[in-house]
């Protein structure tokens, strides 16, 4: 392993521009999340060297015992080809070569990088062993399951000892059962991978279970970089809030005993006092949907925040239901299915929503 990868890149394709600055340390897994078209795959292709940068640079190493290797630097027109970087790439489909056995597929990288046939095969067998495919090494890709093929693709990517492993929605093409098993296998294998991993995904579960750090991209920009725990507690954009299932409102602080926050349209939300907030500071307010209570009458006196709302939609999952609410503030409530029946929650129903001030988390934007 040759040190941390420093990424500070800009890439313009047509009228889309991606800018991202990240440090990718050895042994860490960084999940990249974002809506479609946010630039996740573009970022991956740029890191792989399959797309040239239009600004910025990618450099590897740079501490005392590792000299810097520049992978790309737009200003000097420097671009290391994928062949000359040490990257492994796994896509949603395994993309194994159909005319080669799993062993020869896995040996393809070492062979391409100059290993002898025997060395390459030995290396391939080691890698296949680590993903539990040693017994199937002689099979062709069409004679194994999709989950096995995807594990072989991982073995192939790791057989070249990459500094950087790139996973582009690696579990998205698998059926749900295979997906959760393969997720566990992937987690297991990544634990003893020495290099940095970048995992592009749509699935919050992938991100929360596999990654040390989450990077959220929106419209070509990084909107939040956090640990999974911090991102869940304090989302910093509506997209992140949606991924982690919280209500998120932007507002301006009006400091008093408790903080009152003016959000859009002059609505005031009372929140617990966040530390050290100046009057007029921009804040995010996060509200857990399960803290949003629904009443047929205005909420009882102890609830500081109460608004008239109209039910927009209801979706049931097991014993819980998500209720989309329209009103002075757009809100999602999570209630029991019993409450759905008791309150007759259907689209168009008029109710009151209440949130205790202690349930509103406010933090600087």
């Amino acid at each position: 392993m040759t040190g941390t990868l420093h990424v500070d890149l800009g890439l313009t394709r047509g009228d889309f521009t991606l800018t991202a600055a990240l440090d990718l340390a050895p042994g860490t897994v960084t999940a990249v999340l974002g809506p479609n078209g946010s630039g996740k795959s573009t970022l991956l292709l740029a890191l792989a060297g399959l797309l040239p940068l239009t600004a910025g640079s990618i450099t590897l190493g740079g501490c005392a015992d590792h000299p810097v290797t520049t992978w790309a630097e737009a200003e000097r027109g420097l671009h290391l080809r994928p062949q000359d970087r040490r990257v492994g790439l796994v896509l949603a489909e395994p993309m194994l070569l159909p005319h080669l056995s799993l062993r020869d597929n896995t040996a393809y990288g070492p062979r391409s990088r100059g290993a002898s046939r025997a060395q390459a095969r030995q290396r391939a067998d080691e890698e296949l062993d680590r993903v539990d495919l040693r017994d199937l090494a002689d099979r062709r890709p069409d004679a194994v399951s999709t989950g096995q093929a995807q594990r072989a693709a991982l073995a192939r990517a790791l057989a070249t000892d990459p500094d950087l492993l790139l996973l582009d929605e690696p579990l998205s093409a698998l059926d749900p059962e295979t997906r959760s098993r393969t997720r566990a296998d992937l987690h297991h294998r990544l634990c003893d991978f020495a290099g940095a991993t970048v995992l592009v995904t749509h699935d919050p579960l992938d991100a929360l279970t596999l990654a040390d750090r989450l990077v959220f991209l929106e419209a070509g920009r990084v909107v939040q970089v956090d640990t999974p725990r911090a991102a869940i507690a304090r989302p910093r954009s509506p997209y992140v809030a949606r991924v982690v299932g919280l209500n998120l409102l932007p507002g301006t602080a009006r400091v008093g005993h408790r903080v009152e926050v003016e959000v859009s349209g002059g609505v005031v939300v009372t929140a617990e006092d966040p530390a050290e907030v100046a009057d007029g500071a921009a804040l995010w307010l996060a509200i857990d949907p399960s803290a949003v209570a629904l009443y047929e009458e205005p909420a009882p006196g102890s609830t500081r925040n109460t608004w008239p709302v109209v039910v927009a939609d209801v979706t049931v999952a097991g014993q819980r239901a998500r209720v989309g609410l329209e009103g002075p503030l757009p809100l999602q409530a999570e209630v029991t299915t019993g409450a759905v029946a008791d309150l007759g929650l259907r689209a168009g129903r008029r109710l009151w929503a209440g949130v205790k001030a202690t349930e509103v988390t406010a933090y600087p934007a």
Partner: protein
Amino acid sequence: MTTPTTRTGSATAATRGRAGNPRAWALLVPAWAAVALLVVPLVALVLQVDWAGLPEDLASPLAWQAIRLSALTTSTTLVVVLLLGTPLAWMLARGTHPAIPWVRALVTVPLVLPPVVGGVALLAAYGRTGVLGGPLDDWLGITLPFTTVAVVLAEVFVAMPFYVISVEGAMRGLDRRYDGIAATLGASPLRTFLTVVVPMVGPGIAAGAALAWARALGEFGATITFAGNFPGRTQTVPLAVFTALEQDPDAAVALSVLMLAVCVLVLAVLRRRWLT
């Protein structure tokens, strides 16, 4: 909702077809006339064959020399087409240069060009006074027209486009992400071409090669114009058939039925690999 409706619809159509709509005759008569136009001459050719004398006819000096020459020139052509045509197909399928569509258009011209015009064009290029033929003759003393090399050049000229178009289509159908994966694994573009692209378009290469070889085997117009009709040197099977028709019609029929058999064989192999 949609599926049952469609199923009912098609079932009705099928029932009506089987019951026999009288109006179908308006289509079936010309259809069978077309079949007759194509098949009658082939059947007539087979009926003309003197089966007992066939081995002797094919062993005659004129026929045998032509068969050997055709085997030599068409296999040489096939090698040239494979070695040069596969990279060309790759360039057309993967190239991003703005000139690529123009190159593709130029490469397909010989597909539709009358072969005799091809022969005249080859003479203009490689003839003694031709653009390339002049310098070749003056400086190196090499003359191409009316040699076996000229036969191969003529066959390559007419057969290459068939191969290139067929293989280019196969390569376009190949997922480009394989190239990206191979690159991250350390494979050079040449290694990717040889170990990823070529094996994955194998059926397309086989089909293109068969088409190109059959086209080279039947080549007549460009060959007789550019290479002449010299027994043992430039007289391939089609030229020998044309020559024998006056002196030895039995040999002409024998060679014709041989080529028919070879073409049917190629078609059969293609169907196996490809259409089923």
